[in-house]
């Protein structure tokens, strides 16, 4: 059986058992808060704007790609964490994107989903690599992530394989003025044979606490 103690609970237990000694001039809660502050190990996922085509009440589906849909299939997965590296269970991950031709469905809900991360913060969906929306520079998938006790996050996932980057996203990610952080450009793993390729992308989300 595994223990599910939080860091704070663990430190408090150590103090109670005498394996952690706190100086007389310090209060235990103060020490724990300072320790936790130092334990911050993850940077929040950079903000990126919502864009004009967010739509509420998207269906809870994991497969956005219908049989016969053109475009390169892609599996996107990741976990939702807080800045201390703890998983955020049951986060709501809303995603929306264009189809392979760069068109948003604003009349219906194609290529839109509301995902619920599991207890360990994991989420996943299958789609196609979005096309280039006219007027925007790069291929992207929009995210709106919400979870109790955390600041909502709007951001966008970009693909390192986007032809706009000319194979060098480190150097060329600023070709899209909306990409203010290189870390939103994610590596893409291609598997399968040339007639049945599949792309895979991992995108971890880090939320700030309220």
């Amino acid at each position, binding site marked *: 059986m595994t223990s599910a103690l939080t860091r704070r609970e663990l430190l408090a237990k150590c103090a109670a058992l005498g394996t952690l000694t706190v100086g007389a001039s310090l209060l235990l809660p103060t020490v724990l808060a300072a320790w936790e502050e130092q334990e911050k190990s993850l940077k929040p996922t950079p903000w990126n704007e*919502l864009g*004009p085509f967010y739509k*509420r009440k998207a269906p809870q589906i994991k497969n956005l790609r219908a049989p016969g849909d053109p475009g390169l299939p892609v599996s996107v997965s990741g976990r939702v964490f807080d800045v201390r590296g703890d998983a955020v269970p049951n986060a709501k991950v809303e995603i929306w994107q264009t189809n392979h031709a760069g068109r948003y469905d*604003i009349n219906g809900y194609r290529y839109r989903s509301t995902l619920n991360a599991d207890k360990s913060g994991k989420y996943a969906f299958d789609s196609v690599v979005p096309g280039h929306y006219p007027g925007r520079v790069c291929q992207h998938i929009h995210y709106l992530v919400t979870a109790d006790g955390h*600041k909502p996050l*709007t951001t966008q996932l970009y693909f390192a394989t986007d032809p706009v980057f000319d194979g060098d996203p480190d150097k060329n990610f600023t070709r899209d003025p909306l990409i203010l952080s290189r870390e939103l450009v994610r590596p893409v793993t291609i598997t399968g044979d040339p007639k049945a390729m599949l792309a895979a992308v991992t995108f971890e989300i880090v939320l700030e606490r309220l």
Partner: protein
Amino acid sequence: MTLTSPAPCGTLLLPVAGKNATALCRDHKLRVFALPEGKLLRTIDGGSARLALSTISDDGRFVMVSDYAGDVSVLDTSTGEASFKQHINHYLTAAAFSHGGRLLAVASGAERVRIIDIASKSVVQELEPTTFTGAIAFSRDDQMIATADEKSVRIYDVEGRRLSRNDDFLMSPLALDFSADGKQVIAGGADKAVLFIDVATGKTLRRTTMPDAVMWTGFSPDGKNVAVATMHADNLQLPSPVVFSGIASPHTKTQWMPPKDVVGGGWTRDGHFIAAIAANGAVQLQPVR
């Protein structure tokens, strides 16, 4: 009237009643033109960062420019001097001057909307937190402010107290304006409709469908007409109609289909609607209503 610029203009800001129009040009310079002569008054270097958003005060005295690096400036168009400068964490997603020109409301990232007193350069009010703000508008008397976030229109008094809220949108509202009497707000977005919202209760009084997603809307200065600029949702680079309707007869609509290169437009104080059209390196101002 034709405004001649040494560099192509991407956006032209027309004041409702002022004598100075400003153009954001592709060489990252801001150019100020005198109206109605169309004479180029001055050129202001906007720096190297790409501009994200700009807005002009009703009297044309101030123009606000913000870039993707997070720098925000309010410039006096008659002198070219910056009367306000600030660096923020994220670039602006929405901004509006109060009609009297004393206040500037700005939204960036997931930050709260801030209302800034331009003269004292101080934040006089912060509105409640939201995830994203895509549009801001002041009432004509500057006593109320409306914001559009990812799913709602919220209406506040200028002390920051929320008066009402409307959640009747499936897609984010992107455009807002108060009626002349301050009793209604019109709002629209990619739902392909505009809602007329009762300021006191937040309830939708009327819903009018539009041919495409709404990117801008505004009541005429006399409050009798409303203009709704749509965008071609499949391709923002293609033209999409501007729809005019009367408040007394909202179902009687007229449409104007612009040419491809519209770079600005809006109501003038005498009730005309002017479109700014880029052509051969210049900008033509054309009355369309």
